[in-house]
């Protein structure tokens, strides 16, 4: 083993961030860069991700919450003010509107005097995992894949250092995927994307090979870090074989599995949140230990992410973890330390074989788009199993279901002081600036750019040149997206909850508890006059549906009749459903931080329909101060990540429903 070899170059260090306004986010980015961060990772707010301007009715309460609002080239220019884009590596978590945000980025660079050829970075641009897990899709699969393909064919020719697609297995793991499922379904997505590019016939053979080489991945890393090492080795080997065999790429450099990583958020706990720091360190090891399968870029969550939005200091702590790993330890001084390990090789090939079998199964179903319903059901089923194991204590989580005794934490006293609160004035400020921006535009230029966009879409031309013209003509995010909505229509993804059964394999104490709960639900029918019927609703633009899906599945398995309509409902739609369906209880799930806006709107709507006697419970990442406000407003119960015992939540819901009968 050589120790005098040159040290490897560290990965790009980022923090997923952005909030409130472009100005506030620019301040944060420059602060982070001054602390030694080497790239940027832009979090956009939900209206931007789903293609609405900040003053759209659906954007109410969501502006600047989970990321930065970007409505036009002015916002984009502000976001990167004093950050030279020819020297920056920028990753943008943007999917449904990826083509548009890239167009804005290219236009903003042009205004800085930077040529597209000089731009480096990544657009996430993976619509399949949006359908399966993350929920910020807009259009149906076919036009969505066309947009993805347009971005790829455009960047290969014009922005050659850009990663046009970051195929995500990250969100599959967050949705419950096992390592095998994570690898398999991400590869299926990459196949769908590259097959679409090839079928578009826009690239010659050399350009297509270059496009394959630009495909990158965005993966997740959990606390079972040895398995993660093996997963990533398997991933790399499969990608190498796939690109060689299916796409005929001869140059091994272009077949290399390039990936960025955000380590696991699913496993971070609200209880004893300081324990998340060792978890994050171990998860970071999973993607750095093996030189042959090391990440190209890394972003780490903050220790208090399960409590709310992290503060700059919390993000700094996570950046320091990366820096200690890269610059203090000897991690980067060795070749691959697992070379020749039969244990690692055995595990790697087991994952590889099982993943490839699953890829073939999906391909037999006609590919990832035809198999969306199947895959979603598999993910919900895996996640259900995980929740069941935690509930049954088969899956140990320190501080949550074991070793729960704790001294008082000096870092966190249970109130909202340890998180960042987005200033409610930020939304008003953003809306006012947007309206002022619109008033100063040359309307004729805007119209001309939009009709050029329409023509490009209808004629099957690449969408990028027309989109860049729109960006330069001051078209807004809402206008660009609406033009496409009018042509492509909108899509609703499968919910996947039909195929999962929480109770199928519970045993022991949990089975006993579940039986008791079922008896209790059956008995409630006597008090209620008919079987207990509940509605699980996801108001707002937030697409993180795991929690809502799990509650729906478990309620069904406890014997309740469950109305579940999927994501992105307006408070009005929820109120209509509550009225029409005659439910006994409403459960709302909100993870975007806009609970203080959306929940009261539902409560007001219910009162207006004479339904104030229907109790409402709320689940989500809700700080205690906010929970108290919600209870004051009339919410019967608030459940947070602290309430991990599913059966206890359900039993509590029955009690609430009975009390209101």
């Amino acid at each position, binding site marked *: 083993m050589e120790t005098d070899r040159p040290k490897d170059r560290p990965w790009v260090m980022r923090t997923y961030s952005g909030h409130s306004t472009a100005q506030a986010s620019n301040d944060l980015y420059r602060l982070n860069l001054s602390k030694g961060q080497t790239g940027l990772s832009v979090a956009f707010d939900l209206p931007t991700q789903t293609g609405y301007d900040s003053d759209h009715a659906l954007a109410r309460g969501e502006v600047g919450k989970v990321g930065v609002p970007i409505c036009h080239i002015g916002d984009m220019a502000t976001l990167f003010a004093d950050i030279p884009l020819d020297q920056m590596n920028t990753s943008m978590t943007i999917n449904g509107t990826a083509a548009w945000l890239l167009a804005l980025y290219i236009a903003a660079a042009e205004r800085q005097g930077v040529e597209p050829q000089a731009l480096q970075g990544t657009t996430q641009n993976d619509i399949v995992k949006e359908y399966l897990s993350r929920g910020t899709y807009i259009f149906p699969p076919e036009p969505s894949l066309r947009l993805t393909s347009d971005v790829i064919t455009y960047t290969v020719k014009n922005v050659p250092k850009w990663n046009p697609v970051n195929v995500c297995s990250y969100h599959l793991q967050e949705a419950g995927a096992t390592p095998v499922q994570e690898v398999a379904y991400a590869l299926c997505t990459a196949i769908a994307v590259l097959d679409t590019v090839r079928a578009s016939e826009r690239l010659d053979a050399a350009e297509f090979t270059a496009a394959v080489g630009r495909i990158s991945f965005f993966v997740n890393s959990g606390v079972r870090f040895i398995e993660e090492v093996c997963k990533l080795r398997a991933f790399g080997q499969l990608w190498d074989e796939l690109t060689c065999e299916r796409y005929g790429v001869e140059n091994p450099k272009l077949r290399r599995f390039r990936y960025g990583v955000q380590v696991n958020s699913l496993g971070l706990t609200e209880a004893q949140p300081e324990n998340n720091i060792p978890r994050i360190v171990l998860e970071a090891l999973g993607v750095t230990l093996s030189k042959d399968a090391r990440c190209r870029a890394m972003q780490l969550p903050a220790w208090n992410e399960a409590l709310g939005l992290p503060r700059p200091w919390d993000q700094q702590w996570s950046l320091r973890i990366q820096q200690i790993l890269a610059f203090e330890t000897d991690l980067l001084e060795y070749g691959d330390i697992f070379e020749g390990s039969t244990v690692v090789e055995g595990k790697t090939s087991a994952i590889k074989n099982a993943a490839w079998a699953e890829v073939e199964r999906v391909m037999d179903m006609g590919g990832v788009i035809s198999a969306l319903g199947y895959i979603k059901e598999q993910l919900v089923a895996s996640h259900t199993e995980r929740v069941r194991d935690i509930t049954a204590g088969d899956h140990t989580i320190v501080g949550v279901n074991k070793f729960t005794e704790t001294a008082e934490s000096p870092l966190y006293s249970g109130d909202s002081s340890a998180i960042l609160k987005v200033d409610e004035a930020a939304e008003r400020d953003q809306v006012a600036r947007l309206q002022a921006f619109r008033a100063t535009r040359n309307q004729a230029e805007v119209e001309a750019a939009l009709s050029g966009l329409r023509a490009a879409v209808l004629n099957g031309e690449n969408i990028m040149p027309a989109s860049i013209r729109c960006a330069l003509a001051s078209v807004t995010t809402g206008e660009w997206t609406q033009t496409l909505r009018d042509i492509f229509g909108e899509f*609703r993804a499968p*919910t996947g909850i039909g195929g999962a059964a929480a109770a199928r394999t519970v045993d022991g104490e949990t089975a006993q508890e579940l039986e008791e709960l079922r008896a209790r639900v*059956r008995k409630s029918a006597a008090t209620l006059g008919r079987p207990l019927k509940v509605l699980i609703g996801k108001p707002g633009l937030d697409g993180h549906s795991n929690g809502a899906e799990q509650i729906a599945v478990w309620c*069904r*398995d*406890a014997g309740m009749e469950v109305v579940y309509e*999927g994501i992105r409902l307006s408070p009005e739609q929820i109120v209509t459903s509550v009225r029409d369906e*005659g439910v006994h209880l409403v459960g709302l799930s909100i993870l975007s931080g806009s609970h203080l806006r959306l929940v009261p709107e539902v409560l007001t709507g219910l009162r207006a329909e004479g339904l104030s006697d229907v109790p409402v419970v709320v689940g989500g990442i809700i700080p205690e101060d906010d929970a108290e406000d919600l209870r004051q407003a009339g919410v019967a119960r608030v459940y947070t990540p602290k309430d991990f015992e599913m059966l206890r939540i359900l039993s509590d819901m029955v009690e609430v429903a009975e009390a209101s009968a």
Partner: protein
Amino acid sequence: MTQLPHSTVDALVNFNRQAIARALNLLEDRRPNRQAQALTLLDTLSTLPASAHVVGLTGPPGVGKSSLISRLIEPQVQDGRRVAIIAVDPSSKVSGGALLGDRGRMQLPNQVYARSYAARDRLGGLSREAFSAVFLLRHCCDVILVETVGVGQSETDIATLADTTVLVVQPFSGDLLQFIKAGVMEIPDILAVNKSDNQELAQKALADTQAALSLARRPAPPESAAWDSPVLAVSATTHLNIGTLSQALSAHWQHLQTTASLERKRAAQHLEWGIGEIVHEVGQRGLAALGGVEGVRAAWNQQPAHWSVVRKLSVLLEDVQYRPSS
């Protein structure tokens, strides 16, 4: 029986959706005092016109019934017609619970009333509550679309509830066509081959389906002879032939009215509903005590014609409770 406020009935026949929802909650409620109120409500309504066209859509899971319903209601709502939707999903045999997900698969305009039911302990694709819900809604709106999941024989169940039955299949639904050919399954009033996005595929599927229908053994009661069940290639995605399907629905509704089949059909449905209620209340033994299905039918037909369904039913139920089970 308890007195019913006029305002409730007025609100119902005027398609007040708050009132409809409350009335449907009441119909489901098994507490004795609520049952009495429910019967009064149904009895009062039976004297009023029941003018809604009840369309039943059935077919195997995944053929796109919900999307098809979304397409069918668009023009109805635009024409200012009052539309109600009833969707029935299966209940789990183990837990008794159910996932009611059809709402999420439909694009529902705000003017529509939609309610989901769990099939609960009823076999076949229907729910017991769906019968009384449809009975009530017939007085409240212009068209009712009922969606049920059916596999094989249970598709026929919907005919005991709907004026017009539409069987939705997708290209190459071999099994269903076998059922029709073998005469296991009744011929639907309209057969829609959904997902006919691809012309070639659609043509082939149409030919298959028509061939199956022509081979099917028709029971051919005289009055239905005049209706020739159309087979339509449709697509909820590309909107192919949605207009033609709507026209076929109107044509069948017209046909039922001009041939007086509607009255006969609904009388038979009421009897079916009555038998279902009797079995639910007193079980198969009770039904046997009444002389089985035949006995109930005879007793039903002997009751004065102007009696409401509810009255007929309550008399029969009272009757059975005083008979010793044999």
